C-alpha cells in the first residue's frame, strides 16, 4: 500500500500538535524542552516525507540532518541555562520564575 503525502503531513501535524500543547500546558522547563524536540522531529518527518514526493534532489533529507544537529546544540545551550536556573532557585518550574516583572 502506498501512502500519499497527506498521510505523512497528518501524522507530522499530530506530532507537532502534541509538542506544542505539551510546551504550552506543562510548566516544567525540562518537559517544555522535550516538547520542543518533539516539534523539531515532526519537522523532520515532513522534510523526509516531502523529499520522497520531490525526488529531484535530496534537499529534504539534507535539511533533516541539519535539524538534528542544531537540535543537539539547542539542547546543550538549553540544559546549561536550566542548570544555572536550578542552582539559583532549586527548581525549574517556569511559573515560579518571576524576578522580572513590570
Amino acid at each position, binding site marked *: 500500500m502506498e501512502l500519499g503525502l497527506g498521510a505523512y503531513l497528518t501524522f507530522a501535524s499530530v506530532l507537532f500538535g502534541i509538542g506544542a500543547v505539551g510546551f504550552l500546558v506543562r510548566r516544567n522547563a525540562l518537559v517544555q524542552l522535550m516538547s520542543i524536540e518533539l516539534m523539531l522531529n515532526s519537522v523532520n518527518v515532513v522534510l523526509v516525507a516531502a523529499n520522497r514526493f520531490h525526488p529531484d534532489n535530496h534537499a529534504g533529507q539534507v535539511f533533516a*540532518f541539519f535539524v*538534528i*544537529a542544531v537540535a*543537539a*546544540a539547542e*539542547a546543550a545551550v538549553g*540544559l546549561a541555562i536550566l542548570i544555572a536556573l536550578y542552582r539559583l532557585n532549586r527548581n525549574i518550574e517556569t511559573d515560579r520564575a518571576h524576578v522580572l516583572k513590570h
Partner: protein
Amino acid sequence: MLSAYLPVFLMLLVATLVALGMFTATSLAGPKKPTPEKLLPYESGSNTTGASHLRQSVKFYLTAISFVVFDIEAAFIYPWAALFRDLGWVGFVAMVIFLAVLAITLVYEWKKGALEWER
C-alpha cells in the same frame, strides 16, 4: 524485494538461538548451591552500600552534553565518507575545514577546563 533481507533475518535468528542456548545450557549443567553471600549483588568482593538509585553529580552533565554535541557532528562525516570519491578534492577540503573548526572548539573546551573532572 524482501528476499534480499533473508540472510539478515537468518543471522538474527541464529544469533538469538546461540545466546539462548548458552544461557539454558549453563543453567541446566551448572550446580546450584545458593548461600546468602552468593545472593549478594556482585561488587568485586566488598559489601554493598546504599540504594542503587544514586543521585548523579552534575559533572556528568557537562561530559554528556559535550559528547552529544560532538557525536552529532559525526553524523555529517558518514555521508561524506560514503561519497568520498565522488566529492573529490572539493569535498576533502570542505571536510578538513569542518574538522578544523571542530578541533578548535575542542581545544577551546579543553583549555577552558570543561574536560577536567575534579575542580
